[in-house]
């Protein structure tokens, strides 16, 4: 492990932790503007997290240790994922420990513990949310894997830094398969991050909420960690999407500090644009009935498989 690699690893993790709540705040701001409302401040998620950390935690009677450790596990899994995803640089010593499939596994780990903790308390909402979350998850995961496999097939490796390196430094050519995979990935991200066509992040209406139903019982620092982890998840998904489909501006190995800073500026620009697009998608679409979710995610799976097949047919 070189020193510069270690430094870039640490810097990337720090930037991910710092930027994730701002990204959520930015998306909320854009949504408010598009809906012609006065927008909440950009740093509101930060203030919420600080407020929650200062409060005393209340844990439901009869909660098992799973309920208590889940926020830490979820937060830890999202931090690991943020360290693996090459958002700033591809020279990440930690990323060699885990490839794209392990990354999906990390997300799955967080999801399973979230669902277990939601069912642990034994309230109706918790188990309802947990069931719905697993329902969405088992449909979204194969599609996500297929998207990552398509990128792996093009670059010949499942290691994320290698994929991004190959995609960033390829000859300029039209890849229909990447376009399909990009659309599929967007759909999966919307579903996985509890965004509007599948779930509404702003609602506390009993019949429609999925993610919110699972975390109803959490308070104080536990809730803060879960909220932060949700923000990190959105950040991670955005960074995976940006790294795979718009890899311009990611610092190559041995670029030094200036390259990292340049990459950080470009990343913020790309995230701002991506967040705005997310807000546009959320504003333009209506929330689906939950039974339409299989169709939505089935389409994502179909697109991802088509991407892989078209890549095999046309790319050889």
């Amino acid at each position: 492990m070189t020193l510069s690699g270690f430094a870039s690893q640490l810097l990337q993790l720090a930037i991910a932790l710092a930027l994730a709540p701002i990204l959520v705040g930015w998306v909320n701001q854009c949504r408010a503007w598009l809906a012609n409302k006065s927008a909440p401040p950009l740093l509101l998620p930060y203030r919420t997290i600080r407020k929650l950390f200062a409060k005393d935690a209340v844990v439901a009677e009869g909660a098992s240790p799973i309920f208590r450790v889940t926020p830490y596990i979820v937060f830890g899994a999202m931090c690991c994922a943020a360290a693996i995803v090459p958002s700033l640089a591809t020279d990440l010593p930690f990323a060699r420990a885990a490839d794209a499939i392990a990354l999906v596994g990390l997300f799955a780990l967080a999801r399973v513990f979230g669902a277990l903790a939601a069912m642990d308390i034994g309230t109706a909402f918790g188990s309802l949310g947990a069931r719905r979350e697993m329902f969405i998850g088992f449909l979204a995961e194969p599609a996500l894997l297929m998207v990552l496999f398509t990128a792996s097939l093009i670059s010949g490796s499942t290691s994320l830094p290698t994929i991004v390196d190959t995609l960033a430094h390829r000859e300029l050519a039209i890849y229909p398969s990447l376009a399909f995979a990009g659309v599929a990935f967007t759909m999966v991200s919307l579903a996985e991050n509890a965004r509007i066509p599948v779930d509404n992040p702003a609602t506390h209406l009993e019949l429609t909420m999925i993610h919110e139903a699972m975390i109803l019982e959490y308070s104080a620092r536990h809730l803060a960690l879960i909220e932060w982890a949700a923000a990190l998840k959105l950040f991670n998904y955005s960074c995976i999407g940006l790294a795979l489909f718009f890899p311009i501006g990611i610092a190559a190995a041995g670029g030094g500090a200036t390259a990292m800073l340049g990459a950080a500026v470009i990343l913020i620009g790309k995230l701002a644009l991506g967040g705005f697009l997310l807000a546009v998608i959320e504003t333009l679409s209506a929330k689906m009935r939950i039974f339409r979710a299989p169709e939505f995610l089935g389409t994502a799976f179909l697109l991802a498989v088509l991407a892989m097949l078209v890549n095999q047919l046309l790319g050889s």
Partner: protein
Amino acid sequence: MSGIPLYAQLINLFAAILLLLAFAMLTQRRVLSLVNLFAAQGFALAVSTAIVAFGTHQPHLYWSAGLTLLLKVVLLPWLLHRLIDRLDVKWDVEGLINIPTTMLIGIVLVVFSFNLAYPISQLASTVTRATLGIAIASVMLSFLMMITRRKALPQVIGFLAMENGLLFAATSATYGMPMVVELGIGLDVLVGMLILGVFFFQIREQFDSLDLKHLEKLREGE
């Protein structure tokens, strides 16, 4: 994929779009959107044919592209829209099989046709040979659409979309068919569409519905 000229990449792109549109038609619930998707597929076909004509210097393909544009993008969708208005059939089309299952069957069909096309495209010498698999796949998907739909109008659109796939197959495997054949097919489709339009009115007059399950009975009152 580098080393392929730009026009071939564009053809591949449009081939992929064609396949995507075939899937979109397969899973579309509304008749009106189905007609619009059909027009879009015709447009993609016309553009890709024109690119093949430009890239391989085959001027007769321009005629084919123009004919496709006129028939598939303007005339037939217009006729279909008028038919829908007259018959007042803007209902949702329910398939025989639910949509996720249809998609999965569609994926299996695509894998099958890619495998089927692989040895054939090895024999062809055209730049566009790789897209033969996509052409066969879109024919298969249109077949599937005709099978899984219950109402008469989507079945006819499936039939027309199948013709799109066939034309694309001809373009990708041998740079198009002779002009006479293409004109013949184009007119056939047009006349077929007109006759089917008359049929629709007859069917509806007879059974008060365009559901084809009524046609399965041979005699009245059984």
